[in-house]
């Protein structure tokens, strides 16, 4: 078990600067960070990438704007730095709101009849879940198997073998998801129905991640392989992975260019290696002046 030792900060500083962490440790674990080290585990915290979005948060689908964790404006690259998620929301949230409003005011009305048919088809797909009797698959079972498979195959360290196993598992789960069965057939506050709908989307997103990872034959940011592709490959893979929905099959993986303005790709080193890399970088910058 790994521990985080914050005792050197003392109780007063801990309560003043890290109040939430302090309370979490005390109330959930019964551990006082001022007197004992805190047990820690790695956990999934944030999803990099997402719906492709340009500088005004517009996607390739006209009228769709996305911002935040679900969106990929491109500012975070392959690994988001701490606190930048909140800043991103504030900055691009305003941009998205303004852009969406402008679009809503200027766009011409679509074909109402055609849109109505699409809407009815979407509604029928959703209704099919709540109306279905039998089927045999439970939401929580599928969700757990998906989470375990992603943890095993697309976790911190990855190999072709583990990622392929995850891709196969996700294909199986997508099939089984067609037979998901709910206990709740009511229409008001039926949160189980919502969970069933979301399970389908979870599997779609998981597939996009797993297949993109399998095809990326290098290591970059949070994607770290142990099967001969441990290093960065800027020649072949300094590109965004683009996952295209194909329906029931696996997503189609394509690539798009990366816009680099200021920060060049570099090795993120820690500890002594990190200090040395920082010193080298400073020397380079001052010698350019």
């Amino acid at each position: 078990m790994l521990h985080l030792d914050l005792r050197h900060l003392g109780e007063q500083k801990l309560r003043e600067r890290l109040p939430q962490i302090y309370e979490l440790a005390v109330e959930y674990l019964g551990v006082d960070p001022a007197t004992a080290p805190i047990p820690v585990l790695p956990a999934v915290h944030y999803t990099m990438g997402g719906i492709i979005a340009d500088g005004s948060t517009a996607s390739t689908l006209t009228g769709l704007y996305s911002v935040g964790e679900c969106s990929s404006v491109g500012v975070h690259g392959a690994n988001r730095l701490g606190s930048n998620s909140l800043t991103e929301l504030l900055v691009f949230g305003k941009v998205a709101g303004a852009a969406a409003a402008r679009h809503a005011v200027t766009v011409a009305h679509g074909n109402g009849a055609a849109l109505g048919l699409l809407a009815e088809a979407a509604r029928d797909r959703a209704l099919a879940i709540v109306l279905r009797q039998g089927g045999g698959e439970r939401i929580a079972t599928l969700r757990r198997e998906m989470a375990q498979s992603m943890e095993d195959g697309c976790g911190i360290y990855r190999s072709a073998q583990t990622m392929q196993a995850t891709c196969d598992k996700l294909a199986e789960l997508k099939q089984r998801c067609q037979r998901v069965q709910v206990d709740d057939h009511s229409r008001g506050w039926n949160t189980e129905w919502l969970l069933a709908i979301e399970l389908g989307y979870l599997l779609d997103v998981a597939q996009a991640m797993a297949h993109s990872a399998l095809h990326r034959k290098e290591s970059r940011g949070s994607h770290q392989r142990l099967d001969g592709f441990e290093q960065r490959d800027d020649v072949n893979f300094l590109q965004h992975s683009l996952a295209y929905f194909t329906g029931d099959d696996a997503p189609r993986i394509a690539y798009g260019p990366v816009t680099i303005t200021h920060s060049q790709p570099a090795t993120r080193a820690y500890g002594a290696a990190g200090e040395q890399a920082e010193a080298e970088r400073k020397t380079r910058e001052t010698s350019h002046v």
Partner: protein
Amino acid sequence: MIRNAEPGRPASTPSLRPPAPPYVRPMQGWWQRNPFFVRYMVREATAVAVAMYALVLTLGVVCLAAGEAAWNGWFDAMRTPWSIGLHAVLLVAMVVHAKSWFDIMPKTMPMIVVGGRRLSAEAITRGGWAATGLACALLFALAWWWRP
């Protein structure tokens, strides 16, 4: 009436009907459901004791103004066993009143900073008791000095 959940799947689709409105739970007996509320109601009830004692004292002042006979009548009434019993009850109630009031008093005050540090609720409550102690001591001293 507890309905035990069956193991496995619960009953399948019930016949759906127009939904009933959001359910509003009654407030009757609310203060009996939680010891915190019982203590609150006791605190509020002690105000009645304070009012009663104020009435007794006011009556005394009125009798004092009405002349020696009236005053002696009031004074004698105060020394009867019933009166002493009532005063004992009122004294207990007023101590409870003081305690519960001093406990809640910090909540009524804005932030007070003394010497760069915020005055704690406990300090404010202790201040209340200190003032009470001082006032009682002064009263007893006065009564002792002016005893007949």
